C-alpha cells in the first residue's frame, strides 16, 4: 500500500474503505487517525503548520513502514501524513494496518505512531492565541523507547 505525504486534506474513513481487507487472510484491521486539535497547551489554536524537508520527510516515513513490516506479522500498511497548514479537526496522519491476528495489527500501528511522533521529519507549529513550535514530549520519548531495537 501507499506511504504518502499529502498537502491536501484527506478523509480517514475513505482511506479505511479503500484499504479494505483480504478475506483470505486478514482478520484484523487497525486504524489510527491523528487530528489537529482546536486547543493546545497555550489556548486556542487556529491552525497547525507542518513543515517537511524535500525527499527526506517521505523517506523517513518509508523507513518506519519498512521497519513495521520487518518487525510485526502484518500483511499491509497504509500511511498518509499531511504537511502544510491544517485546520482544527482535520486529520494530520492516518495509518492502517492489516494482519492475520489483532495483536500484530495493534502493535504495528502503535509502533508506527510512536516513531512518527519522534522520528518522522516534520516540524510542527501551533498558530493561535500563542504561536509555538511543538517538539516531542518526554512522554513521546518514553513511548518510543518501549520498542527495543530488534536484533539484526
Amino acid at each position: 500500500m501507499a506511504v504518502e505525504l499529502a498537502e491536501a486534506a484527506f478523509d480517514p474513513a475513505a482511506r479505511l474503505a479503500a484499504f479494505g481487507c483480504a478475506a483470505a487472510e486478514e482478520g484484523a484491521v487497525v486504524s489510527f487517525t491523528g487530528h489537529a486539535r482546536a486547543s493546545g497547551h497555550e489556548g486556542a489554536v487556529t491552525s497547525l503548520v507542518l513543515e517537511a524537508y524535500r525527499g527526506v520527510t517521505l523517506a523517513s516515513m518509508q523507513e518506519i513502514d519498512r521497519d513495521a513490516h520487518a518487525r510485526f506479522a502484518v500483511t499491509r500498511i497504509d500511511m498518509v501524513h499531511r504537511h502544510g497548514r491544517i485546520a482544527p479537526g482535520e486529520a494530520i496522519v492516518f495509518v492502517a494496518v492489516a494482519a492475520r491476528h489483532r495483536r500484530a495489527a495493534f502493535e504495528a500501528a502503535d509502533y508506527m505512531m510512536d516513531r512518527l511522533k519522534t522520528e518522522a521529519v516534520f516540524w510542527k507549529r501551533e498558530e493561535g492565541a500563542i504561536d509555538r513550535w511543538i517538539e516531542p514530549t518526554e512522554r513521546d520519548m518514553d513511548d518510543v523507547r518501549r520498542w527495543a531495537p530488534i536484533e539484526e
Partner: protein
Amino acid sequence: MTTTTGDARITVELCGRLADPCGRSVSIGIPAPGLSVPELVARLVQGFPALLPALERGRIRACINETIVPDQTIVRPGDLVALFPPVSGG
C-alpha cells in the same frame, strides 16, 4: 548579511524553529576542504549570532544531500546542506 569569509559559499537551509531568527536559509563561506558539522555550526553562529539560542537548544542534526548525517561528516562546497532541530510528526 554574512560576516564570515572562506574559499566557497554554501547555503544552509534552516528548518523548523531554526528559521525564526534569520529566515529559512543563510549563506556562509567555508574552506574548500570542507568543515565538520560542529565546525559549520560554529561558523554559522559567528556569522549569525542571532542563531545561537536556537542552535544551542535541543539536538541539532545536519542533513547533507538529503541524508541525515553523523556530526563528524564533512560538509563540502557544493553540498545541499540543512540543519534540523528535533523533529515531530503525527
